[in-house]
């Protein structure tokens, strides 16, 4: 059934389809990365395809190849019950220039999947509204699922973050949890009491 899909793409985008295969019944089409969004839109909207779900989107790193990365998307049609794998090859062998159009305008699931792919493999998705790391923290250096990222590599210690409006983020300071109008600054302990209350050295005999 999905064989018809390959033919559909081959006729509609004859110059963009680079290769096809169907290993173990998984129909696969490798396409030109510059036509990625256009082909995905066709897959979603075409009556023969009706790919309503973007099941998965990830990338595979082949450091010896040029282009280096394969961006892999799996589509599924809930209505027609067929699936298709779409791949595109991007990036230079040194890891730069891995860029492809974002599918967030077509499927909401692309948002997090592309963020993860960017986080793990450093593929840039142009047009993504919020492309930041998702599983790792912002200060993380490198992209761990690249083959040239050594598994034993350690990351630098992260200092306290500089954040704007930090005083508005919880915890709110010494007044947190106090009823309004009873701020702790209002109450200034006597010098002797303070030592005792705060565990000073005076009272330790």
């Amino acid at each position, binding site marked *: 059934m999905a064989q018809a899909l390959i033919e559909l793409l081959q006729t509609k985008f004859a110059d963009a389809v680079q290769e096809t295969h169907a*290993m*173990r019944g*998984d129909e*696969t089409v490798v396409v030109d990365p510059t036509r990625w969004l256009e082909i995905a839109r066709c897959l979603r909207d075409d009556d023969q395809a009706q790919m*309503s*779900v*973007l*099941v*998965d989107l*990830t990338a*595979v*790193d082949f450091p010896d190849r040029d282009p280096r990365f394969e961006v*892999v998307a*799996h589509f599924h049609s*809930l209505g027609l*019950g067929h*699936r298709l*794998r779409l791949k595109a090859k991007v990036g230079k062998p040194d890891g730069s220039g891995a860029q492809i159009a974002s599918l967030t305008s077509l*499927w*909401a*699931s692309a*948002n*997090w*999947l592309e963020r*993860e792919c960017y986080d*793990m493999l450093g593929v840039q998705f142009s047009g993504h509204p919020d492309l930041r*790391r*998702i*599983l*790792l*923290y912002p200060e993380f250096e490198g992209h*761990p*699922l690249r083959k040239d*990222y050594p*598994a034993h590599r350690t990351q630098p210690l992260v200092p306290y973050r500089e954040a704007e*409006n930090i005083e*508005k*983020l*919880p915890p709110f300071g010494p007044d947190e949890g106090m009823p309004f109008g009873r701020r702790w600054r209002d109450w200034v302990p006597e010098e002797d009491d303070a030592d005792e209350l705060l565990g000073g050295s005076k009272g330790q005999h």
Partner: protein
Amino acid sequence: MEPLERTLDDIEAAEPQRETMLVNIGPSHPCTHGTVRIVVEIDGESIQRADVQVGFLHRGFEKMAERGTWAQVFPYVDRCNYVSPLLNNFGYALACEKLLGIQVPERCVYYRMVLSELARMVDHLTCTGAMVMELAAFTPFLWMMKGRDMVYDIFEEETGARVTHSFGRIGGVAKPPSRGFKENVAAVVVKLLEIVDEVKRLLYGTRVFLDRVENVGVMAAEDAISLGWTGPTLRACGVPYDVRRAHPYLAYDQVEFDVPVGQAGDCYDRFAVRLEEVIQSARIIEQCLERLPDEGPVCVDDPRVVLPPKDKVYTTIEATIQHFKLIMEGLKMPAGEVYSYTEAGNGELGFYIVSDGSGTPYRVRIRPPCFLITGGLEHLITGAMVPDIVPCFGSLNMIGGECDR
């Protein structure tokens, strides 16, 4: 006391401007059973914006999987969805078998199905139990944990471990069913159904519970599809998509079961669909137990894939070599790529595996169902109230290990 001399106009003029407030929920909050951080911008009690941040349980399984043999991935997938590890085990085993192009024997098929459905029951009981516990209904949680423990006893008997079993093998399972397996399972399933029945009678008539979940966290079907939701959360929106029915694997096309669907797509539906699925799992188990042969192999008969029996390893040189090669070099997968998917506790659990023909995986991509489901949490709680976060998050059944891997 000073006399109150201010008029109403003065008070209105003096009222501070409405200002939104950032509130941080998590990453370890008593009302969220998982490590997730939700930063919400609230105006009073209503949520204006939300940012769901995951990744606190990221352990780099996909990277670690590229460093061992294909068989050494099993313990990692165990620790993805640690509530129902057997479903992950068999999902990964099926992906490898798809790449190898082999079929497991009938006894293994039904054995896997019984264990899978038991794991699914545990998953649903844990999720629904934890969800209602966070809504202050502690009793059903205890009943369900009691039921979960009964199933864990069976798992311990079969696999040797209560939680992280690593019981799946490429081309079969680690051991044949133990003696008394069928009787034990049949007895436990009856008890589990009693628990479900009791929970239903307790909760479906309780105003306090219904007010917290009905029409709360409503998700439209088209939004759920676009977000890539699968499993009970999608079915609660009224989309009858179940991998077991739509793309049958193992022998799910030979057993009878219904796919329960919800109507409104709210927290109540997600709760109810899970409870109904426990009942359907019991039906599947009953049919599988009838068909599970008492004799026969549980692994494929292929020395390139399956480890030889231990008594042969210690007595014959052929089996010793076979064992050595499988352990040291690993099973050789044909070069290529497959995407295999099964219905796990939360929905479609996919494995996209790429092999370069060696004994080590080139890439193991785990497509976790609850990563995408948690991706929809922001949509679900924006515009809702702060207390609604609790049932919404609970009904999604976010499993940190699976979401973050």
